């Protein structure tokens, strides 16, 4: 393992396919033990949101906000409404940006992304999508203070308010983003839905998501809720309650997070249009909970619409010139917070000393939460294929991993390695994701 920062986060590293004579399959989500904690130890607490977003730039906004919220908890601070409003809007813009990028630019199809895309004559002009992505970045810039990697979040609030003209610019952009999201969803339904329907691999799993007071999905804060494969609630609580449970579960209980889980573990989207669009999904694949792995893509594009709607209404509510943007901070201590990151539930935990210096730090990423689920899916796939390793098997594995899209491949800058081993455990064969 290199000392690259990505290894600080639990991430998908490789798929072990063959173990001696026995054909098995397992993903591995290693993390240098305590690496993130070692890296962060001794750092200024308020810098944590700046580090984490640069460890994981695809999910920069989610990482930033998860760290900021965990710091709120460390200082026992209750940010004022104005600050929460800004952060919420930022969270929605971040999810929008992420989903758009993932869906159009980081798919494991085409020749590696952007270069091919620009030359594609898609009905949704590549130019339009790229423009929307840029504008989404501009909203992140306005709300977060810096494009791609926000700066505004600080313990107990935000560093500064948003100027009037900036706010109205963001509002203009947001309505445009909704338009693009709706067109995208339409386009997807026309072509992608059929593809999803064909991918019949279905793996029952528990689902984890954050719900608001009405039981609807929430993308910033709320109560964590876990439902079993049948959709029956098995646990609910805040991050500090759920975290210890997760740590015990994640090895052996198939747990799913991300857009599909947000569909399964909640009463549905919190916005009207997204709710309507969810009906199409249910019509095609049956009622919630849906365990068809490929449905993650569909759920994601609906969430793109939801994020745009939420962004518009959050921006409408934002009052420029609100000066009460910071809460007083208590003595520093330990804090845990979860946020519905674009890729799924993301949990941050920090332990600070009295000076606000990081002593311990922990990130529980969607990747690591879903380890068991992916393994179950792989296992099911391999068994179904008669344990024969052909090129087609590899293709299917890649496709399966791709279906966990929200949480997997594109966001890990490491390649997916598919490894076969001989009897002695030596790597005998190795495939790389094309």
């Amino acid at each position, binding site marked *: 393992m290199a*000392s690259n920062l990505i290894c600080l986060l639990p991430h998908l590293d490789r798929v072990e396919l063959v173990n001696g004579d026995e054909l098995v399959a397992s993903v591995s989500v290693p993390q240098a033990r305590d690496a993130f904690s070692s890296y962060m130890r001794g750092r200024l607490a308020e810098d944590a949101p700046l580090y984490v977003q640069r460890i*994981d*730039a695809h999910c920069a906004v989610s990482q930033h906000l998860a760290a900021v919220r965990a710091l709120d908890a460390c200082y026992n601070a209750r940010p004022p409404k104005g600050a929460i409003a800004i952060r919420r809007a930022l969270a929605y813009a971040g999810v929008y940006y992420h989903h758009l990028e993932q869906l159009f630019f980081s798919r494991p199809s085409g020749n590696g*992304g952007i*270069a091919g895309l620009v030359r594609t004559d898609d009905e949704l002009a590549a130019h339009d999508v790229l423009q929307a992505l840029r504008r989404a970045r501009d909203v992140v810039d306005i709300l977060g203070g810096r494009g791609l990697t926000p700066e505004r979040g*600080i313990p107990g609030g935000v560093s500064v308010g948003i100027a009037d003209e900036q706010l109205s610019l963001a509002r203009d952009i947001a309505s445009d983003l909704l338009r693009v999201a709706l067109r995208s969803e339409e386009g997807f339904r026309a072509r992608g839905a059929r593809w999803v329907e064909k991918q019949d691999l279905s793996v029952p799993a528990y689902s984890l998501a954050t719900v608001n007071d009405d039981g609807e999905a929430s993308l910033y804060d709320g109560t964590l809720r876990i439902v079993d494969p049948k959709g029956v609630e098995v646990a609910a609580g805040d991050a500090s309650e759920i975290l210890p449970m997760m740590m015990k579960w994640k090895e052996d209980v198939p747990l799913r997070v991300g857009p599909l889980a947000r569909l399964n573990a909640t009463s549905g989207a919190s916005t009207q249009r997204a709710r309507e669009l969810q009906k199409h999904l249910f019509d095609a694949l049956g009622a919630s909970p849906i365990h068809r792995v490929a449905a993650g893509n569909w759920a994601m594009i609906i969430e793109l619409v939801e994020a745009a709607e939420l962004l518009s209404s959050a921006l409408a509510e934002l009052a420029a010139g609100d000066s009460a943007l910071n809460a007083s901070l208590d003595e520093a201590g330990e804090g845990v917070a979860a946020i519905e990151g674009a890729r799924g539930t993301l949990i941050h935990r920090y332990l600070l000393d009295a000076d606000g*210096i990081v002593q311990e730090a922990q990130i529980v990423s969607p990747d690591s939460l879903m380890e068991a689920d992916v393994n179950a899916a792989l296992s099911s796939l391999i068994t179904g294929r008669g344990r024969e390793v052909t090129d087609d098997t590899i293709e299917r594995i890649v496709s399966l991993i791709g279906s966990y899209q929200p949480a997997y491949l594109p966001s890990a800058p*490491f390649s997916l390695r598919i490894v076969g081993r001989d009897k002695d455990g030596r790597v005998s064969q190795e495939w790389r994701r094309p």
Partner: protein
Amino acid sequence: MPNNKTLAFYAGSGCGGCSQSLMLSPSLATMLDGADIAFWATRSGDLTEDEISQVDDKGIDVLMFAGPVDGEASVATAKLLRRKAKRVVAYGACAHLGGLCGLTNVIPGAKLRELAEKNGGFIRPLSAVIDVDYVLPGCPPPQGMVERMLKELFLSDDVPDVGTVFASSKGVCGECDRKHLNSPLEEIRRFHAAPPDPDICLLDQGYICLGPVTRGGCGAVCPEANRPCTGCAGPVAGVLDQGGAILQSLASLVPLSGDVSGEKEHRVLDSIQDIVGTAYKYSAASSLLKRRVNDGE
């Protein structure tokens, strides 16, 4: 004008921010129009050594290299890529300086270090292993700098001088609108208390801001967002060691108390926490000391 160059993008490792910053550039489409793309690898796995080898030597006009160099394998890849490219751009803070990854060079006794050492690799800036022709700073590079690079490299008849850094030679302060009062540094402040006054120089208020030692070109975005500059664009043209430069300046701002023991000044200086994470956040690997050593400490 159409761009007839052959270009390539390679992000060996890293967080993915650099490729996004390039993708989002408004000039991207213009740049790609007419260009040949040798490869566009946003992670090392996108491209094997064999695939790179197939490209003609000097067959790439401009190669943009993002991400840190962090081990023998990546050094070899960097050298191979160098052979294939006429011009190499160190793209983003990791390639330019080692970036945030560079802090792992300095973490004492951590597992991370052992792992890195076993791998024969500390974080190094690209220029430590191959000749670098151009630098695009930033974590990730700010839009203005990306635009400038694309224009000068691909959309202009003139080729920029080797050694060009697509940023200002001056510090971020030159672009910061905050009012500068020249206040002495008598107390270090952090975001524990209320955030700083958004109109007054952060250093004046006791917040450690790397604006003076960091290349501008970003438009002082972070101070604009009421947060101090953390130095992502690397040292200004006139200094070698970014961290050393901010430390000497901070010490200079502490007023002499008149007591020659220096106790009062030391109290202020002692209250600066996380020296490396603050002064060398992105530049530890490219500092004059480069990495942590064992000096019998």
